[in-house]
């Protein structure tokens, strides 16, 4: 849940401040240049904040955040991709509600990330620097990067894998950067094949069908292979890049490629996520009790995010040492990454947003013929009849991890644990 700043009561004071400055434009420019630095100094002094200076800080931070959202191509995306729910856009259509915009909500989060959590680090830099405004802009980038990773795991993962694949192709001399503001591969980077001749934008219509064909081959690994194994899917995607040339697309913006790819993956994922919302875990043969793995989005509280992260990690570690065969371990790993994405996806904050509700015991048996299970099996390339036992194993591991993290039980029993999903 984000903080929503109530600037309304200070609006008049802010307007007065701005109008009083317009008569001295050169002074205003000089003052604005160090507004972030001045704020860090003020916080460090321990003195009460001056409301005028605070409003100046707020205005400058808002402008910087909006600019970075646009630069990252997030301005036209739903705010839910960054964990802000309840708004379809960053700024409300009605000016009466402008003080309650999604932008103001994430602005408060951003302020907390930079000026509360990282105050000591910023003060450290003031020992050897006069002006640290540049560091604030850097921190805004880090903030959005982390938010995107947390709340838009599919978009984030597709972006990273494609970015890595393109960088590989550049390193190998097949692709080259034609024009970009920076030397890194970003949304606005224009790329071309060595013998590229056409203009960026040509063939964009064909890109959607092309990346859909790629995704046929790359999913679910594109989303579920992480860490050391991510390199495998990066290499597979890199090998697909010459298809662009065969389609007559010699030059393209990175955004032209990554956007349809994200959209296609999201659409496929949504098809099973929506149906899986709150769906009961299928029962393994002979099992008496059933668990329910629910969609549970972590909210923005630091503590809860940390619990979420620990749970994800605990289950991943447990899977590595689970007493089962490699094929089953692969299925479990894929299914766990699916559950992870499921629990991170942008859902309404009012929905079950606590990870300690991820496991709900004692629910009724599901209808095993539900179409979502067929879709799940198809999308994840897991035999459908294996899903009940796999879910059961993950549920057990999650329960133990949850108990271990909350201090209710030891974790030592996790290693070498036998599994319901033990058959091949």
């Amino acid at each position: 849940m984000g903080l929503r700043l109530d600037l309304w009561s200070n609006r008049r004071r802010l307007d007065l401040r701005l109008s009083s400055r317009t008569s001295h434009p050169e002074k205003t420019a000089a003052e604005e240049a160090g507004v972030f630095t001045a704020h860090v100094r003020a916080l460090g002094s321990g003195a009460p904040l001056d409301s005028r200076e605070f409003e100046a800080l707020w205005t400058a931070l808002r402008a910087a955040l909006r600019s970075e959202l646009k630069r990252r191509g997030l301005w036209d995306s739903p705010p839910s991709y960054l964990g802000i729910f309840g708004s379809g856009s960053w700024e409300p259509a009605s000016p009466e509600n402008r003080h309650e915009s999604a932008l103001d909500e994430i602005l408060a989060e951003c302020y907390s990330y930079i000026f509360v959590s990282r105050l000591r680090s910023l003060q450290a830099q003031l020992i050897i620097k006069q002006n640290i405004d540049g560091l604030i802009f850097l921190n805004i980038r880090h903030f959005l990067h982390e938010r995107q990773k947390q709340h838009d795991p599919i978009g984030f993962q597709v972006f990273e894998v494609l970015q890595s694949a393109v960088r590989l192709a550049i390193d190998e001399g097949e692709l080259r950067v034609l024009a970009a503001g920076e030397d890194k591969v970003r949304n606005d980077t224009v790329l071309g094949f060595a013998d590229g001749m056409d203009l960026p934008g040509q063939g964009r219509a064909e890109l959607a069908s092309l990346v859909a064909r790629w995704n046929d081959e790359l999913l679910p690994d594109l989303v579920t292979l992480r860490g050391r194994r991510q390199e495998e899917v990066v290499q597979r995607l890199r090998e697909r890049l010459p298809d662009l040339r065969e389609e007559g697309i010699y030059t393209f913006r990175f955004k032209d490629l990554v956007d349809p790819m994200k959209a296609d993956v999201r659409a496929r994922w949504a098809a099973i996520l929506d149906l899986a919302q709150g769906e009961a875990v299928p029962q393994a043969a002979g099992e008496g009790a059933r668990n329910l793995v629910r969609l549970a989005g972590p909210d923005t509280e630091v503590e809860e995010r940390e619990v979420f992260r620990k749970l994800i990690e605990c289950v991943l570690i447990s899977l590595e040492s689970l007493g089962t065969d490699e094929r089953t371990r692969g299925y479990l790993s894929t299914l766990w990454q699916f559950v992870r994405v499921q629990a991170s996806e942008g859902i309404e904050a009012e929905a079950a947003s606590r990870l300690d509700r991820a496991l709900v015991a004692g629910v009724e048996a599901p209808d095993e013929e539900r179409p979502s299970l067929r879709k799940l099996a198809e999308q994840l390339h897991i035999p459908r009849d294996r899903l009940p036992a796999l879910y059961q194993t993950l549920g057990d591991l999650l329960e133990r991890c949850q108990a271990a993290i909350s201090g209710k039980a030891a974790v030592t029993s996790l290693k070498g644990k036998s599994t319901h999903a033990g058959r091949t």
Partner: protein
Amino acid sequence: MAPDSPRERLEKLAAQARERALGLKAELERRRGLPAGPGDLFVLPATAGLPVEWAVLERAADGKLLVVPADAGPPAGTADVEVPADAPGGPLSLRCRFGTWLDGALFEPGRRSGVLAPETVAEALRRFRQVESGTLAGSPLAEEVDAEPEYVDWIREVPERARELALAARPSNVRRFPSRSWGMPHKLAAAFALVSVGLSVWVGQLQRKVDRLSEPIFNPPSETVPLGEDTRGDISLAVPRTALHVQLVLSLDSSIDAQEGYLEIVDRFDKAVWQSDRVWLAPDHDYPLTLPRDRLPYGIYLVRVLPAAGFGSPPLAEERLLIEVAE
């Protein structure tokens, strides 16, 4: 009870941040003047262009420090130690892959920026040793971070670069000139002016000397002379007989108020060996001074800080300096 408005909640957070900052200030004050030791965080002028601090993990008998770069950038990868937000010094990632031994003189007490918990230091040391021995085993989530292009770029551009810069720094190199102090051109000009005094008599000899002095000054014997703080005994500088220059870093203590004034070195007969122009005396600032070796023959000198009233007035601070033969 009605929940806080977002603005009120934010102000409470800011108040917490201020309290933490004051707590840190008090902790740093307690350590004021102490030499750098395990658990300390420092900033270095040599890496001022990068958003890094340096975490001290260990001190060797010879005064060298084992340090790792630390930053609040991307999350921790397999070779990093994450300092959580609620732990001392956090949130921070200690980039243990780039740990290195640096001269302890680089870490001036006035540039201490924070303190880590002992368990964080122990974990970072363990991680550093694992990197060294090739036995590093990361967690699954840390391995995911390793694979992120953003992380790869950050590591290359920040901690890796920071280590290069820190290794290239020497205590004398990292001392910064205050804006009103002497710059290198002035120092060289002073050196050459000195040489030219006896030019009419010793033309041939001085020509050779000028040639030698025209060479770049590299790695001269160097020592910091603290001025305004209590020191035990003389400050001594061992100078090889072959040295052409010596470098002194005149370091003003924070107890000296900022003001206009002068710096001076006199020999044991109170004869001026060197006198500065009128300069701005800034507390906690260093004033590097490079002199031709023959201006400071072996012996005892007094280094003085003088007020704007001029030379001959009671000094604001004075320190004995012994120039001795390096064996």
